[in-house]
């Protein structure tokens, strides 16, 4: 498939928006390279790097052996010596292999070395449920990254954000983990290359005054659908798409909850010590006086991810239950 050149798309898939972001960034900066398992000839397990090999050659789009720790480590060394690597980890679950290089090395290099050098690299990876991938191919491990100082963490929900945030990630001087949801690749939406997104700023997708629903990645879309149905019952939900989990736009969350006085936090991560736990604490700490009900975090269960489709579906938040909980919170 040819890579389209125009600036505006009425409809583009999340996958193609990512591909376009990498294409545009590689055109602009010859020091941007991509490395990872099956990123070149195969075009990426989820097709995000398709055709980039033909465009930029094997010096810049590099298939690696199945060696996740060293894929990340190689990106670190390249970033320290003048390149801007995008390392793709095929599944977020492979953090289990790579956490030393991500957490002990890339995140800490600038700090340990007293600010002498930064590590401008992006780790693109993919996670979440929805394809019966099972306990080792469906996790949401963003809290592992959010816990470690020194890493930016981006989890976009739509093509326009994905395009701009990926390009921005490559322009920061901080190692950035960019997690895509496996069920979002075919999600379509508009892309306007001129409609930039402010890195670190949450997006109020829909204004409302009855309840704040705070989400990110695929859960944002669940929230939008739930809000549509809640509206039929005259419940006006405000939807916040966090877009980046670090930096985390606390002010937008706090201001929204101060207005609505009710909060529901959504995440595909686990209930315990997850991203939702953190956001819930922030709301309690800052909105204690105005809250009318306890903040509710609606997350995946505290179990490994099951394979069976019926189990997997209800293992993570569902639109029906988001609606149900929202109603219970405000009544």
């Amino acid at each position, binding site marked *: 498939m040819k890579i389209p050149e125009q600036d505006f798309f009425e409809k583009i898939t999340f996958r193609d928006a990512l591909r376009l972001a990498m294409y545009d960034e590689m055109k602009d900066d010859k020091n941007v*390279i991509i490395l990872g398992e099956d990123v070149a000839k195969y075009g990426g397990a989820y097709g995000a790097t398709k055709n980039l090999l033909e465009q930029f050659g094997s*010096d*810049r789009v*590099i298939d*690696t*052996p199945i*060696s996740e*720790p*060293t894929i*990340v*480590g*190689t*990106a*670190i*060394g*390249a*970033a*320290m*010596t*003048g*390149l801007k*690597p995008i390392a793709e980890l095929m599944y977020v679950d492979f953090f289990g292999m790579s956490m*030393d*290089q991500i957490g*002990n*090395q890339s995140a*800490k*290099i*600038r*700090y*340990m*070395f*007293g*600010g*002498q*050098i*930064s590590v401008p690299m992006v780790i693109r990876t993919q996670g979440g449920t929805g394809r019966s991938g099972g306990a080792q191919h469906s996790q949401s491990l963003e809290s592992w990254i959010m816990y470690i*100082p*020194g890493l*930016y963490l981006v989890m976009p929900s739509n093509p326009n954000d994905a395009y701009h945030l990926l390009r921005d990630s490559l322009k*920061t*001087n*901080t190692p950035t983990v960019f997690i895509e949801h496996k069920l979002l690749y075919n999600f379509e939406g508009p892309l306007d290359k001129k409609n930039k997104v402010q890195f670190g700023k949450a997006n109020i997708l829909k204004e409302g005054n009855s309840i704040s629903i705070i989400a990110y990645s695929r859960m944002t879309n669940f929230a939008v659908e739930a809000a549509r149905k809640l509206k039929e019952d005259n419940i006006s939900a405000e939807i916040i798409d966090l877009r980046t989990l670090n*930096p985390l736009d606390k002010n937008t969350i706090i201001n929204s909850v101060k207005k609505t006085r009710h909060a529901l936090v959504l995440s595909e991560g686990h209930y315990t010590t997850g991203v939702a736990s953190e956001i819930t604490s922030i709301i309690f*700490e*800052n909105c*204690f*006086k105005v809250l009318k009900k306890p903040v509710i975090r609606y997350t995946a269960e505290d179990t490994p991810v099951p394979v069976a489709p019926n189990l997997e579906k209800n293992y993570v938040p569902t639109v029906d239950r988001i609606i149900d909980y929202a109603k219970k919170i405000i009544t």
Partner: protein
Amino acid sequence: MNSKSNTNLQELYTTMKRIRVFEERVAELFVRGETAGSMLHLSIGEELGPACVTKAMIDGDTFTTHHRGHGIFLARGGDPDKMMAEIAGKKDGYCKGKGGSMHIADMSLGHLGANAIVGGGIPTVVGAALSYKYLNKKNVSIAFFGDGAMQQGILYESMNMAALWKLPVVFCCINNQYGMGTKIDDAVAVKDFSLRAKSFGLECLHVNHLDAEKAYTDIREIVDNTRNNKPSFIEVECYRFYGHARKDKSPYRNEDEEIENRKLDPIAFAKENILTQNILNEEEIKSIEMTVDKEMDVSMNYAINSPLNEEAEIFTDVYDKSYTIESVDSRINNILKNK
């Protein structure tokens, strides 16, 4: 013996001596309570490898080291004042005292960082070498590590990638026979590490003698060859004269072993060669030793007198400058203020 090799041996001797005395002063700094903690891993007895390998490096070459890396950095040109200050956790240290002995680094000298994770810095050099190949530079990147890292999986991933992509990488194992308290015999079934490296397609060199000049010539040759995108593996066998870290009295090995192995002293051997070859006389060697002693005394005092860092330094160098980190104290007070 031509004058060039005379100079080489003399230079190697001086470098090794500087490493030895530097480490002795670090030990003294510790005893005087002036170091940041006791996690200090001295390279006494291991000076030959660092001296020879760093002498084969040129401008623009980069390297990573392990937790026992003072000697390598010093040999490559590290400023002993700033090194000692870093080890003391002081403001004038290479990393403002935030890295310490195990995370010392200097980008201007190509030192991409020491590492406290065994094997953690190895893939960094694969990435650096990938840059050199892509940017058409004739530089090499060298990973220094110990025999302990020979048992880490990431080394073999890195060896495979370096060989597969024909990158200018040198994997340099300083084999001091011990991974903390575990002797090499208790860690591996086959001690011939070159066998492993060869099987990945790397050029190999094994140095198991004390002849610094010969070691340097051989190492120089393999490093130069690596510049032509022929990755290599160098193993330098030696003996860790003292314990793993400052508080370790080596209860896991007996004194006879230590006495016997401390006879394998690369510095004593180089000194004897210098004398027998009439490169320098006793007096001239004494003069070098006195210069080195004085240099390291000055460095030790520099570290002692260097100021402490401001508290605010906790929060710098984590993200881009635009990102500010709020202290826990400030967060708590803000919450309590809001009631």
